[in-house]
């Protein structure tokens, strides 16, 4: 399977130990520019540790992570991270939350305002711009977070089970929204989930992780035509294939 896109993220021999506990065991892979990569693995397999090492929130024990062939530098590389936990700032309005990343990056006010308006519209929250997070529902909160991430137009977007806490209908809606944004912005996305159907629905490629210490069990290309139909035969086949790989029983 040929992919002519440039390498965006290169992970080589990434290892992370917490004291004596080996969590990430010599992981290597590459993500292409503009690729949508899904990473699945059993619960508690160190997926979050993996993303946190990637963004240097945790320091890797050994190994290297390169973006555009340079070591990750959060000041230079434009990265956005959507966390599993609710991460809107309760003291900021919806509008200010969406503009938070732009504010941190010292983007000029007028430019920031345009971006905020643009992405408020994309996620359909213009009417709620002056609301505070405690006035919003769970799905709206997650939309705020997604708008906040996309407003900075990141080169690499990391998502850690962003829809884990939502019900199925909302998840489908937000997944489609995410795909639209990805196609529109050509963002490189690394999406971590334990939901296999979600991974098959979203990803161009799926990395299946092993149990702890976490390594890569298999890499699967997913060429199913979009929009994908979760009931179609090729979809179900692929889902079963991934499920078989993850089964730890």
């Amino acid at each position: 399977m040929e992919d002519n896109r440039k390498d965006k993220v290169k992970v080589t021999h990434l290892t992370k130990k917490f004291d004596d506990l080996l969590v990430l065991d010599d992981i290597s892979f590459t993500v292409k520019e503009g690729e949508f990569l899904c990473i699945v693995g059993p619960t508690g397999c160190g997926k979050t540790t993996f993303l946190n090492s990637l963004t240097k929130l945790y320091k890797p024990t050994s190994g290297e992570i390169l973006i555009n062939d340079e070591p990750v530098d959060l000041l230079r590389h434009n990265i956005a991270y959507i966390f599993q936990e609710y991460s809107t700032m309760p003291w900021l309005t919806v509008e200010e939350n969406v503009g938070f990343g732009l504010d941190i990056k010292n983007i000029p006010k007028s430019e920031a305002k345009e971006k905020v308006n643009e992405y408020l519209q994309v996620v359909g929250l213009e009417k709620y711009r002056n609301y505070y997070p405690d006035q919003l529902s769970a799905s709206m909160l997650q939309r705020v977070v997604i708008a906040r991430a996309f407003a900075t137009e990141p080169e690499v977007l990391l998502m850690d089970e962003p829809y884990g806490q939502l019900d199925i209908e909302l998840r489908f809606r937000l997944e489609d929204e995410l795909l639209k944004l990805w196609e529109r912005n050509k963002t490189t996305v690394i999406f971590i989930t334990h939901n296999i159907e979600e991974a098959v629905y979203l990803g161009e490629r799926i990395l299946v992780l092993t149990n702890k210490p976490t390594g890569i069990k298999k890499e699967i290309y997913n060429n199913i035509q979009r929009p994908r139909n979760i009931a179609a035969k090729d979809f179900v086949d692929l889902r079963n294939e991934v499920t078989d790989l993850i089964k730890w029983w």
Partner: protein
Amino acid sequence: MKGFFEKNKYRLISLCSVAGVLLIWELVTDVFHLISPMMLPAPGKVLETFIYKLTGGVNPDGGSLLQHIVSSMKISLGGYFVGVLIGVPLGISMAWSRKFELFAKPLFDVIRPIPALAWIPLMILWLGIGYESKVGIIFFAAFISATINSYAGIKQTNKVHLWVAKTFGASNRQLLFKVAIPTAMPMIFTGLRLALGSSWVALVAAELLAATKGLGYMIQVSRMLGRPDVIIVGMVTIGIIGYLLSSILEKLQKKFVRRTK
């Protein structure tokens, strides 16, 4: 008429408690004479004294109510502002910098349980019996609350919020000013309110030091002169001003501090 009751229903309920106390007070003094006026004067007498003092009467303690209030405010607000201006940044720095915490926290933890009033003898030795020593005592009262609450507020900062900012490339300074301090604002304001309360409480004690003006002084002198009406006027004035200062801070908090849930 009915509309008036409907509109002010809750205010009327609140008024009931005040009215109840006044009624009982009136009954045990002027109506049934259960308590000697030397112990507890009737509400009417206290009101009379209050109006007399408020309109500039200087007897029996040598100052009008306004003069006492101004004198007390100078001391308590003076000590309060110094305490808060040092306490809030100190609390924030201790919570934010691990090294500074290791350096300053043990010292602070020892000073913290010492009541402001226990500083009186040292304050007199060091600063004499004038304005400075009283401000010094109030300072300790305000400083402790301001520090503790600012410290606790910063410590509440949500790790995920810091991570969000960090992945956006935030500097340490941005993490502090854009994430930690906004998180701590409600607690900092609580500290400001508590500090105001403690400094107002410490006031009477501070004014036990050779004062010639001040609400605490007025109360003290009136005790020696056997004037419970003036004592009560002083106490009620302290209560009202404390309440007013606290509601001003509450208003400021509503205006400047955003939601926190």
